[in-house]
């Protein structure tokens, strides 16, 4: 068993929303190995961002929201950590970048001020040293005029630039794990490509691991080595990217891939998955995808599928696959 940077075991999360408690994550498990980029893919509402927030212990409701399971980061269970301990880890050993670069930076402070604050929170160095470090990091993410950017306010920079700044900030204390929550979704396609290239290079140089969250299978296929597919708060398929994309086993993954418009297939109608993502509170027996599944069987509505492991650590939760073995 290889050493993992992050190991999520049977994580279950309940969130308070509109006065009611809803289970948003059901017993999810996955690992992140050193130096790899793991993709986390799913539609809106599948629980991707909640997973990220849970790992960072930034859920509204704090620790109380995590009702079961473990989050093992470098062997230590984060669920048991105090807020002070987590503060020391966040930004230093573990960092996160967000989807909306336009609103993710404080508008009334310069980039420099915010950057130096972050660095000095985690490193006991002088302000001059921190400024130098920040400038170096800005150069490392290929920002053309790092001094000028350092003195700018966020509103003076474009979305792509801000995202570069965020990446620089995230990497500044050399974290072992970087969580990127849809970092390119809000950007133009050309800028997207640049940022992805930057991410790939940064990871290669620093040997940190990345959890890359997206709803875009295309991006995931370019960037990630392994991928976990989420649906309705569960991980339904999980394994090496090439295997899953070329030969998906779970009906949902198949349908997701099938619904991507492809110029080569020349089909006239766009296919979509019938039905909608289940209401978060809905208590369901059996497989959570079965109402929309084209290949469902009788047992699917009655019992939750047992996890199946195919070669190369390909994990699936599906009765059809179980039966085929």
């Amino acid at each position, binding site marked *: 068993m290889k050493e993992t940077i992050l190991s999520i075991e049977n994580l279950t999360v309940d969130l308070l929303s509109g006065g009611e408690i809803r289970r948003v994550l059901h017993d999810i498990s996955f690992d992140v190995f050193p130096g790899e980029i793991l993709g986390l893919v799913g539609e809106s509402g599948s629980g991707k961002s909640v997973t990220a927030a849970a790992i960072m212990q930034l859920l509204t409701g704090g620790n109380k929201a995590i009702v079961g399971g473990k989050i093992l980061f470098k062997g230590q269970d984060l669920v048991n950590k105090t807020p002070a301990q987590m503060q020391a880890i966040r*930004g230093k050993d573990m960092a996160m970048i967000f989807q909306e670069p336009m609103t993710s930076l404080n*508008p*009334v402070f310069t980039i420099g001020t915010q950057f130096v604050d972050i660095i000095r*929170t985690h490193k006991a160095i002088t302000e001059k040293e921190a400024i130098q470090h920040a400038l170096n990091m800005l150069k490392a993410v290929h920002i053309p005029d790092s001094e000028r950017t350092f003195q700018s306010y966020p*509103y003076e920079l474009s979305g792509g630039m801000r995202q570069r700044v965020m990446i620089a900030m995230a990497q500044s204390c050399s974290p072992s794990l970087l969580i990127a929550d849809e970092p390119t979704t809000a950007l133009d396609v050309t800028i997207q490509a640049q940022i992805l290239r930057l991410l790939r290079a940064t990871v290669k140089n620093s040997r940190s691991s990345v959890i890359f969250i997206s709803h875009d299978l295309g991006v995931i296929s370019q960037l990630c080595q392994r991928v976990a597919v989420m649906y309705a708060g569960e991980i339904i398929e999980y394994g090496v990217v090439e295997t899953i994309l070329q030969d998906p086993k779970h009906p949902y993954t198949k349908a997701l891939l099938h619904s991507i418009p492809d110029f080569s297939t020349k089909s006239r109608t766009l296919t979509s998955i019938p039905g909608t993502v289940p209401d978060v509170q809905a208590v369901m027996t059996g497989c959570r995808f079965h109402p929309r599944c084209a290949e469902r069987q009788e047992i699917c509505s009655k019992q939750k599928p047992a996890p199946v492991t195919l070669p190369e650590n390909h994990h699936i939760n599906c009765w059809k696959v179980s039966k085929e073995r």
Partner: protein
Amino acid sequence: MFILRYFIKRLPRLLVVFWGVSVITFAISHVIPGDPARMLAGQKASQETLTKIRVELGLDRPIYVQYLRYAGDLLHGDMGTSIRTQQPVASELKKYFPATLELTLVSMLLTLLIGISLGILAAVQRDRWGDHVSRLISLLGVSTPLFWSGLLVMIVFYKWLQLFPASGRLDTFLTPPPQVTGLYLLDGLLAGDGRVVVSAFEHLVLPASCLAYVQLAVIARQVRASMIQVLSLDYIRTAKAFGLSNRKIICQYALKNALLPTVTVAGLIFGELLGGAIITETIFSWPGMGKYVVDSVAFLDFPAIMGFTMVVALSYVLINLLVDLLYRVLDPQIREVE
């Protein structure tokens, strides 16, 4: 420097407002009353005095001529003569201005310090005890009549507990320090006179607290609302994700953003403090413009009343100008937009 540019841009509107203020005060003293001559000469003036006044002040001339005269006098710093004291109103106001300024400034300081702290407490402790206490204080503050709280405070802290004095600016046996600013606290410090500073401070406690109490409630509400809104924004989430300490997030990252709308409110608060000074100075026998005007009201001493009104309005306009400038200094984005 953009401050200069700002003033130049604002100058035309400022002049219009100043002019407007003078028109209003003119209208109030010359147009509204049934007999302006009586207003300006006093209720007890005899018929001959009235006729004399009418001619002297040109009250028989058309309105716009009267106004031009009025405005002309103002530009020369002439606000007429007080009926009650027979002194020029302008010099009397000048005499009493520093006392009011000191009271208002100290009240403003208290208002901001306590009000902002209460607001932050309420926002951070949202829906828990700190929030409830803060909101209770706010409610009581905006519901308490200033003249009543002043008297109650006087009864409790002066008569019963004998903690603080309740009239005047200094103990009667002390001489005021040499006038530099007219603010006894400052002048006392500059003159190195410890007893004066202490006495001035003691005399400020009750009136300034009363004045501040009403307004700090307003600030607390504003800050609470702003902070709650700011704390839910994305960049606060980013700050948390990077492990910044709670104190830094609340007191710097959130507060600087939350205080922006509060800055605008501060200008309005200052106006309310100026108005409230009328009441507070009367109750605590504080020798400022407020007490002066209340004494004048009893006599229906119009020149004095209108002089006061004009001075207060102009001060208020200038304060709001400064507040607006401060807002631009704090918010880099607004500067760009302009």
